[in-house]
């Protein structure tokens, strides 16, 4: 994998440079002079049957990048994303992937082609679809606003913090801002 990974990484970086556009992901702290929007925690959710309760941000990133294919129990990891345009997706791209949409697409195209990426993300059009998908697939992992979470899915800790805990990094602009 090491031999293949380096050229691909270079390719990806080149693509990123060629795209030339900075990430449009919303930031927790807005531009200077503008009012700070209300934020809401973005929960990372898995199937209720999943034994994993906590992940480090690094592990989470590896999972989201598709670099980790299975859970500790051997179950295949299925990554669930929302369609482009959702603020939740933008937060995930900026705070987990550190990529924009193009980089994200290129990452997976390249990764799947080279075999570096084991998981192709499933894209759903609504948070409800995400929730139901995760409910149906034992190895699924995705993200939802804290207000969209219900008992059908399990919220896991990121760096030992739950959504709402102080220092929890993943925050999405609240719907009230609209």
């Amino acid at each position, binding site marked *: 994998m090491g031999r293949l990974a380096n050229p691909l990484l270079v390719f990806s970086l080149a693509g990123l440079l060629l795209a030339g556009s900075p990430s449009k992901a919303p930031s927790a702290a807005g531009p200077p002079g503008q009012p700070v929007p209300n934020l809401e925690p973005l929960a990372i959710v898995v199937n209720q049957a999943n034994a994993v309760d906590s992940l480090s941000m690094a592990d989470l990133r590896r999972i989201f990048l598709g670099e980790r294919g299975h859970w500790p129990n051997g179950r295949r990891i299925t990554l669930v994303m929302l369609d482009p345009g959702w603020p939740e997706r933008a937060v995930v791209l900026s705070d987990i992937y550190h990529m924009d949409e193009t980089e994200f697409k290129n990452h997976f195209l390249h990764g799947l082609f080279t075999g570096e990426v084991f998981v*192709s993300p499933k894209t759903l059009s609504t948070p409800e*679809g995400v929730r139901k*998908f995760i409910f*149906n*697939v034992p190895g699924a992992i995705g993200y939802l606003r804290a207000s969209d979470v219900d008992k059908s899915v399990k919220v896991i800790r990121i760096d030992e913090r739950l959504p709402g805990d102080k220092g929890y990094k993943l925050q999405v602009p609240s719907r009230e801002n609209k």
Partner: protein
Amino acid sequence: MGREKASRERKSVPGTSTSAAQTWAGLSRYSSALLLFFIFCAVTVVGLFAIGDLRKAGIDQQNMYAGLVLSLHRIAALEYQTQETRRSTLYALSTTDSNLHVKYADQSREADHAVSAGITEYLANARTPNEINIGKRLERDWSTYLSVRDEVLASILEGSTKEAVDRDLGEGVQSFDRVRQDLAEVERIYDQQASQQLANVDATSRRTIIRVAAVLAITLIATIASVWTIQKIKMTGAIQLAKLQMEFVASVSHELRTPLAVISSAADNIADGLVQSKDALKIYGDTIQRQSRHMTELVDEVLIFAATKDRKSHFVSHTVDVPEILHSVLRQTPELATASGFHVELEIEPGLPPVKGDSSALARCFQNMIVNAIKYSGKSRWIGVKAFLGHAQVQGQREIQIAVRDRGIGIAKSELSHIFEPFYRSPAVVAEQIHGTGLGLSLSKNIAEAMGGYFSVISELGAGSVFTLHLPVAEDPKSQMPLEVRVDGSTEK
């Protein structure tokens, strides 16, 4: 009165004192109404039976149809939802769109919830061990299939279509077939239950028909029997009345012929000049006069009876002093005057309160009692007349009782129920050639009842009789306002 204890008593109380024959006569008078009432009751009873049975049969049928429809609905819903569960899962295989995957998974889960609810309902309604066993087996097999279905769905949603197909073909098809077999078994049980219920309804229907037919037959027989009985009573009554009337005509004719013969003979003797002397003429005149009075009284009695029977007679009611009337009657009764050596023992309680009634009617009543006692006193030639204050049957009321006793031939037990019937004359007195019309006691009873009183009789064959007239004491003795009393007992001022 010690003798009275041993004797038989028969009371003639208004409304309740009628003899059995009178009761039957009364019944026969209302036979049509009774018959209609009886038929109405019979039809009502039959109708209630029939309605009850039909209602039960209807309820059974309703239950059967409702149960059948519900069972069919349950099994149809279960079959549909099981198919829907599987169908939605398989639909998910036909697309790569994750949104559609989720949609089909949702549909499948909704359907499987419906199936689970249906199975729970089936188990809740299961009664027989067989039903419960099959229900539990279905529940178990369905759970097994769902676990396979969940894995298949997960594989589809993960994008592992081949894995999903392999799992479905390997485990899903078999487990789903077991579910279908269980459902077929449930359906078979429903069919059996429906057949059983149909048989029950059929049996209930047959039983209803038999019951209704039986009850109708019984009603018909009872109706025929009642009609026959009433007709027989009416016919017997009519024959008896005709016989009594014939006897009455014969008796009256005989009673009239005797004085007529005396009068005719006396008149012939006078006309033929056989009676010359003044004394002889006076004797003949007295004889004619006495016989004429006798005839007049006889005719009066018949006319009064006829009037009371037609309810045309009206009595004028005053407060009446019973001792005074008794004394008057004893003075004026010709039978006493002519019956030499007859001893009348009169005992009147001092201070008797007055009664309310028609004095002349009461006098006739007393006279009938006394004349009867004289006629049937036999060789004893003794009668006792007693008037005293007694307690009425109605609590708190007082009555005056006028008892006339004789030590004569007495009345047979079998005769007691007939002596107050009009025209009735005992075969014994007919045989003894004791004259009478058979109207005296009937007329007396009518008068007594018109005055609010009644008769009681104590008699022993060969020992004598006591006829007692019970008259209620006038509530307000000072009241002299006349009341018009009809013989049916009603009054008007």
